[in-house]
């Protein structure tokens, strides 16, 4: 065996990169294989019939190459049975071919073969090829039966892992006939394992098959029985126990996962409630409640931040109430501080409580933990925005993932209306009637649309009307803005007057007017929008946009008016501050001159009597809290009066009324999804804006969402009918989220502006005494962190670094944008291709009247056929085995003859020569023979092996 050649092979194999060790010892392997082959050739009944073509030695070589290719292919196939990708197979095949070519050449060098043997080989080759073909076509089990060679390992065609394969090869590298018990059972085990896995997979995916339940149950039972029967049989000795243990753990794991999933579902709050609403009103109303629940979760997290990092430390470790001026109600307000009317306006004790900014002390650290409250306050205030931004964007991204390709809107308008418009969840006759009506309307509308698309007359009038409508709406928007500005200004004047002279209305004018505008304007817009004669879907979008503009305009007008107030307060504060400083100086100089000492104690004034500034932060916080509370009141009152009372009247006065109240004028209230969602979004905007100045606002909002969940779901179930316009739930989710994101951004602006530019009050809040609020961060960096970190910050804030960073980000955005555009194009291209392919397929099918699998499944579902026993897709293992054994027996019988052949002896010698080669022994060698050993059931293997007496050169 020329080592040079061997190296050659090795190199080749390395080039190919697969199973180097499998082929390296091709010498011994070859011989073994050849012997095996010869034997087989004789054994196979067809061998004689097919041959007869004389060949030279060169021919022989070639043929051997060809011969071995298929066989190897077969073996290879077995190895890669689990991943049945053709490509890979093809690869492997070519690889093998290379390897075997080399092997064949070497074989020639080692010994010469007679023509007879060649003939035999030819016969066998044919067979091998045939087997391969079959394999390619048939299921793996069939391959077993057809294989006349009866290679045991091949029978079990489904070797799962390399380890198994290796085991087999090593056993075959012994003398081929001496399969020992382990390897034999291993082969069988592999196949069993494979089958068990298959069944398991079937069990897992059974519910996704469009089969009849009967068939499914039957299959499931079969599979389960099979798995149970054979799962335990797998593995041997130690391995068996381990395997059994593994299987048991897997089962436990599945069970646990299942329980955990159930638990998780049970933990989702209000799932039942929402499902109930869903089943009565369809998915669109439910989408509002799901949105509400999502909002509740978000606010709960925000509340946890605020409460855990700001409120709780201040309560636990900060100074108690009454210890310093900012934590005490001033003397002038004290007698009325507990009045309910004052408390409802968030004055008195409310104002000087942890609910508002002013209460917090500016001590750098508090308590034994050295908790840095001011820093924590600032970071939480900013962190709330950061977290919300992250969550909203993540949710949007997830939603858009689920949305699939929203690209072809309008392609199937009619078909969608037809096939998907019925909401099968509807279980309430009233809702169903409504749905009928809305579907009919939408049919009619779309027909009218279609007709209108063809004829478009009187376009000038329509244009004029649309311009007019927009003009009117702009007017009302501007009017509402002005009204709010006016009212806020007036309230500032009122604030300067004595509180006692003001009526309740004058005190709450701002909130009242804003809520009123929010109540009156949307219906007004709707009325105006009827001038426009838009398609309802477009009209709805306009309506949403206008309401959004109204709310936003109101909010911002309110903010600007508030800023005016803040500026006025800042002026006032400056004078008070100067006065305070002046007073302190007076006190100090007086004290020192009177007592003649420099050790001056602080002035002994009761905290309630200290002169204090207006504390604009608390004032802003109070405004937002009042706004939120009045919003809650108005919403709840609207539901109570507009929905509940109306429903009561309609239902109970209907008996004694002149016209039909239910069908006529008042009828029942509709659940206004878009309005409710917008209300929720704006409420959240106010929370975001106000949370920095009133930490208690988040808690208040959590309460509000909690109650409105119960309240609204009750109201909806008891006194509402669904909206007639279908506002599609799945598509609109991201629309809501987009609005939320916009509101988040818009509420971020004023807060960040005040944090960055306005000076904090000098005598209240965690930042008092500092020039700017963010100075807290600087202080921390300077005092608490090591010096080098301060240096790093100095460098990092250098414009020289920031500018490139910004540039880099812009470039990144540009790049990502470009790539996304490319992807979009590619997507579009692919879509077109798919469509074309589909069309083609359709044409072909129509021409051929060919039924594919899908159609067959469908037919199977037809009632008259569904009772037939399911098509036997699962092969029955027992018959297989029987046949397999039958096919083996003749070969076994003829084996001795093959061995008696002179060649056989030769080969054996070669084997013994090759055996000493450590490589040959250790690594694995020829497939075929090893396989033959493996294939047989455990009992016959060892017996035969010993009977032949070949020494198994095992490791």
């Amino acid at each position, binding site marked *: 065996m020329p080592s040079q050649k061997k190296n050659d092979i090795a190199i080749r194999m390395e080039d190919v990169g697969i199973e180097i060790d499998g082929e390296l010892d091709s010498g011994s392997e070859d011989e073994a294989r050849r012997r095996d082959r010869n034997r087989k050739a004789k054994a196979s009944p067809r061998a004689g019939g097919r041959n007869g073509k004389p060949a030279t030695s060169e021919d022989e070589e070639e043929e051997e190459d060809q011969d071995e290719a298929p066989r190897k292919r077969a073996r290879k196939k077995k190895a890669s049975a689990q991943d049945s990708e053709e490509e890979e197979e093809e690869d492997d095949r070519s690889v093998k071919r290379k390897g075997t070519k080399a092997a064949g050449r070497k074989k020639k060098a080692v010994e010469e073969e007679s023509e007879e043997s060649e003939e035999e080989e030819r016969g066998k080759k044919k067979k091998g090829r045939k087997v391969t073909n079959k394999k390619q076509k048939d299921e793996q089990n069939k391959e077993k039966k057809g294989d006349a060679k009866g290679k045991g390992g091949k029978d079990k065609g489904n070797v799962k892992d390399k380890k198994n394969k290796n085991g087999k090869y090593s056993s075959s590298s012994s003398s081929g006939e001496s399969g020992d018990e382990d390897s034999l059972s291993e082969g069988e085990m592999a196949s069993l394992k494979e089958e068990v896995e298959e069944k398991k997979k079937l069990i897992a995916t059974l519910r996704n098959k*469009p089969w009849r*339940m009967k068939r499914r149950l039957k299959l499931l039972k079969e599979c389960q029985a099979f798995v149970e029967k054979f799962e335990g049989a797998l593995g041997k000795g130690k391995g068996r126990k381990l395997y059994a243990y593994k299987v048991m753990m897997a089962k436990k794991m599945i069970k646990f996962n299942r329980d955990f999933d159930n638990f998780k579902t049970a933990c989702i709050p209000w799932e039942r409630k929402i499902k109930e609403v869903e089943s009565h009103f369809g998915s669109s109303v439910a989408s509002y409640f799901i949105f509400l629940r999502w909002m509740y979760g978000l606010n709960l997290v925000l509340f946890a931040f605020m409460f855990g990092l700001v409120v709780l430390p201040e309560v636990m470790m900060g100074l108690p109430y009454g210890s310093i001026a900012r934590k005490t109600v001033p003397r002038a307000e004290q007698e009325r501080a507990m009045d309910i009317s004052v408390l409802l306006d968030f004055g008195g004790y409310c104002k000087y409580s942890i609910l508002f900014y002013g209460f917090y002390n500016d001590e750098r650290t508090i308590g034994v933990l050295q908790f840095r409250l001011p820093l924590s306050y600032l970071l939480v205030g900013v962190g709330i925005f950061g977290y919300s931004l992250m969550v909203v964007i993540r949710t949007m991204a997830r939603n858009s993932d689920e949305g699939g390709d929203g690209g072809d809107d309008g392609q199937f308008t009619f078909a969608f209306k037809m*096939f998907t418009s019925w909401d099968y969840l509807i279980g309430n006759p009233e809702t169903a009637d409504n749905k009928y009506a809305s579907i009919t309307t939408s049919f009619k509308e779309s027909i009218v649309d279609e007709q209108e698309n063809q004829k478009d007359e009187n376009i000038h009038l329509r244009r004029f009307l649309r311009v007019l409508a927009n003009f009117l709406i702009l007017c009302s928007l501007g009017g509402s803005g002005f009204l709010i500005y006016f009212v806020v200004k007036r309230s500032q004047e009122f604030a300067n007057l004595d509180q006692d002279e003001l009526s309740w209305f004058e005190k709450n004018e701002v909130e009242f007017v804003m809520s009123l505008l929010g109540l009156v304007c949307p219906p007004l817009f709707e009325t105006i929008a009827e001038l426009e004669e838009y398609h309802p879907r477009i009209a709805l979008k306009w309506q949403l946009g206008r309401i959004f503009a109204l709310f936003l305009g109101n909010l911002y007008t309110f903010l600007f008016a508030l800023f005016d107030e803040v500026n006025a307060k800042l002026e006032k504060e400056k004078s008070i501050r100067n006065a305070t400083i002046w007073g302190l100086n007076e006190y100090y100089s007086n004290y020192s001159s009177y007592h003649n000492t420099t050790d001056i104690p602080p002035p002994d004034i009761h905290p309630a009597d200290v002169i204090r500034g207006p504390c604009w932060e608390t004032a802003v916080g109070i405004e937002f809290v009042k706004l939120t509370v009045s919003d809650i009141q108005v919403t709840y009152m609207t539901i109570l009066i507009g929905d509940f009372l109306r429903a009561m009247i309609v239902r109970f006065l209907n008996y004694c009324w002149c016209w039909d109240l239910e069908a006529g004028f008042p009828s029942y209230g509709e659940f206004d999804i878009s309005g409710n969602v917008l209300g929720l979004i704006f409420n959240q905007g106010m929370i975001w804006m106000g949370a920095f100045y009133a930490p208690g606002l988040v808690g208040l909002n959590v309460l509000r969402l909690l109650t409105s969940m119960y309240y609204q779901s009750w109201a909806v179930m008891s006194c509402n009918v669904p909206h007639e316009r279908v506002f599609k739930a799945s598509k609109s989710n991201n629309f809501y989220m987009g609005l939320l994101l916009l509101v988040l951004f818009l509420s971020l602006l004023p807060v960040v502006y005040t944090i960055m530019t306005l000076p904090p009050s000098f005598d209240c809040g965690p930042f008092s005494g500092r020039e700017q609020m963010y100075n807290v961060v600087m202080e921390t960096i300077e005092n608490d962190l090591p010096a080098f970190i301060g240096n790093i910050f100095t460098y990092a804030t250098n414009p020289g670094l920031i500018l490139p960073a910004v540039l880099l980000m812009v470039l990144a955005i540009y790049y990502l944008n470009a790539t996304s555009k490319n992807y979009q194009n590619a997507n579009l291209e692919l879509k077109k291709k798919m469509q074309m392919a589909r069309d083609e397929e359709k044409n072909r099918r129509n021409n051929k009247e060919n039924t594919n699998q899908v159609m067959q499944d469908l037919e199977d579902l*037809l009632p008259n056929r569904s009772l037939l026993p399911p098509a036997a897709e699962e092969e029955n293992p027992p018959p297989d085995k029987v046949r397999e054994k039958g096919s083996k027996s003749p070969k076994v019988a003829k084996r001795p003859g093959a061995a008696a052949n002179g060649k056989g002896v030769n080969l054996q010698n070669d084997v013994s020569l090759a055996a000493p080669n450590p490589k040959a022994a250790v690594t694995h060698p020829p497939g075929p023979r090893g396989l033959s050993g493996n294939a047989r059931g455990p009992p016959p293997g060892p017996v035969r092996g010993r009977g032949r007496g070949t020494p198994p050169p095992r490791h």
Partner: protein
Amino acid sequence: MGTTASQLGKDLLSEYQRFSELLSKEDRNLTSVPMEKVLSLPELKSNPFRKRICHVFSTSDMKDGSLTFEDFLDLLSAFSDSATLEIKSHYAFRIFDFDDDGTLDGGDLEKLVNCLTGETEDSRLTPEEMRQLISNILEESDIDKDGTVNLSEFQHVISRSPDFVSSFKIVL
């Protein structure tokens, strides 16, 4: 897999309860529930396709739409959350295929529209509108232009629909 089997039983329990409620005492020995009883389920009561649903899921030889427990399970599994779009569209097609001929032709579509617009006369579409509607639908979804919508065309349309999966559900 004894544990799994018993687990399954537990899961099925609530469905079985609902199912056996439908069987009144005198016909407890029957294995299938007649269609009228199934239709009285509140979840199906207001569904315009309730009869079709029964017929589609029934395996009875009498073609009377009666459901055995297995059929009932079939129904629930097709309308459950975990059923795939493929299964749902399969069954939707069968439900819409009123004459059981494997395609949705003009007659099927007309019946479908009538189901969707309700039983009352005033909500019905006029013949002219109906004709227009059906021709529009065929124009959109009948890719091979044979005048009917077959299963794969139907599935193609359905797969583009954003809210079919979320609305093709029945919750017991």
